[in-house]
């Protein structure tokens, strides 16, 4: 992910709440501290397909916005 970002591609990490610190730390370690982190409700495992879709509904617009900003 960090390598893709360094090459100029649109990138983001999607995480659920408790994993924010891990994501922030890893982004810093891999030299991309500005890497967008998109939070979805926790948990991702052990939920119904409808609940997975709800989480996608949270993440997708944010990511689409990132793509639009990148294209400008």
């Amino acid at each position, binding site marked *: 992910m960090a390598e893709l970002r360094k090459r100029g591609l649109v990138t983001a990490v999607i995480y659920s709440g*408790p*994993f924010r*610190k*891990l994501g922030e*730390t*890893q982004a810093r*370690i891999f030299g991309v501290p500005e890497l967008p982190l998109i939070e979805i409700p926790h948990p991702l495992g052990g939920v119904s397909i409808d609940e997975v879709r709800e989480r996608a509904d949270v993440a997708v617009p944010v990511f689409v916005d990132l793509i639009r900003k990148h294209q400008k």
Partner: protein
Amino acid sequence: MIATERLLEIPGAALEVDDDYEGIDAFLRGKNWTDGLPVVPPTAERVRAMLAYCDRPIDEPVAKIPPRFGEATPIRLAANAVMAGCLPQYFPLVLLAIEALCEEKFNLYGIQATTHPCSTLLVVNGPAAREIGMNSGHNAFGPGNRANATIGRAVRLAMWNIGGGIPASGDMSTHGAPSKYSYCVAENEAANPWEPLNVEMGYSAETSTVTVYGAEPPHNVNDHESLDGEGLLKMIAGTIAQTGANNIYYAGEPLVVIGPEHADSIAKSGFSKRDVKNFLFEHARVPLGNLSDDNIVRRLKQFEPYLPGLTAEQRDRPVPILKGEEAVHVIVVGGAGKHSVYIPTFGPTRPVTLPLKLRDGTLAKSVEDFRQA
């Protein structure tokens, strides 16, 4: 011998703290540099003594430990080994274990950061284990032996302090495990009726090795009744055949640790180690229907490589826990008693065995070979 003065010249290598145990303890805890237990203060003199058993440049990384990817230099590892309570003679094995853990196929990043309760099991074979007095007998996985306890702890402290495996940050384990304090044994080669692990991995019996596993704590197999190998292996297979461990989904090469009395009975029934593995592969299976409906639907694709044509309706079809005859390690550890243990793994990990070698590549006959003039 490395001059203490040189250690103190390395930027950031030394800190000044009042020479008071409680004060040092509070300082280290304040920095979050301990596993919660008290540690031996890593004074320059103690670190120097530890490094007397290292034949490499003290500030040249031997590996990078994820998830922080901190550089594991001998001096940093030595400080953690001192804190863990290691004798300097143990240090070559600590360093070797770190190298093995950081090989790519082990997937230390996953092991460190996962929600799974795996830790890093070290199994030591060969003369070095005997030389430093490791316990391979009664209570080998438990307390009471300095080498077992502190080598395992040194590795764990390095993973904490250098690798950043900090709870709720770099270590997301839901529960953790007591084996995250220390998890290190020697194989009981004297009681092993088959070839020991180092020989099975292609080394001579006189080559010391460390084998690392990304593993759960041991699960017991109590069998006081079976009179022959087939009965004992059936009970071991029954313990392996569970739905909760990751190995039902992933080919993570779990470990079967057979107690000496069980091993003796199994061998006397004519089973070679390969026969043992074949038996466990064939019998450690779980009917698909033992999984919940949601697991069957969502995980079906993971079973297909091992069960071609599998459908969710085939509830009676047995799912192999071991993903091949050779996808399991078998060793002998323990003292008297009718017990063996099964050790599931993280799953997306493979064991790594490394031989104890000097920097120039020659095999070490003794830990004393590392001692610097």
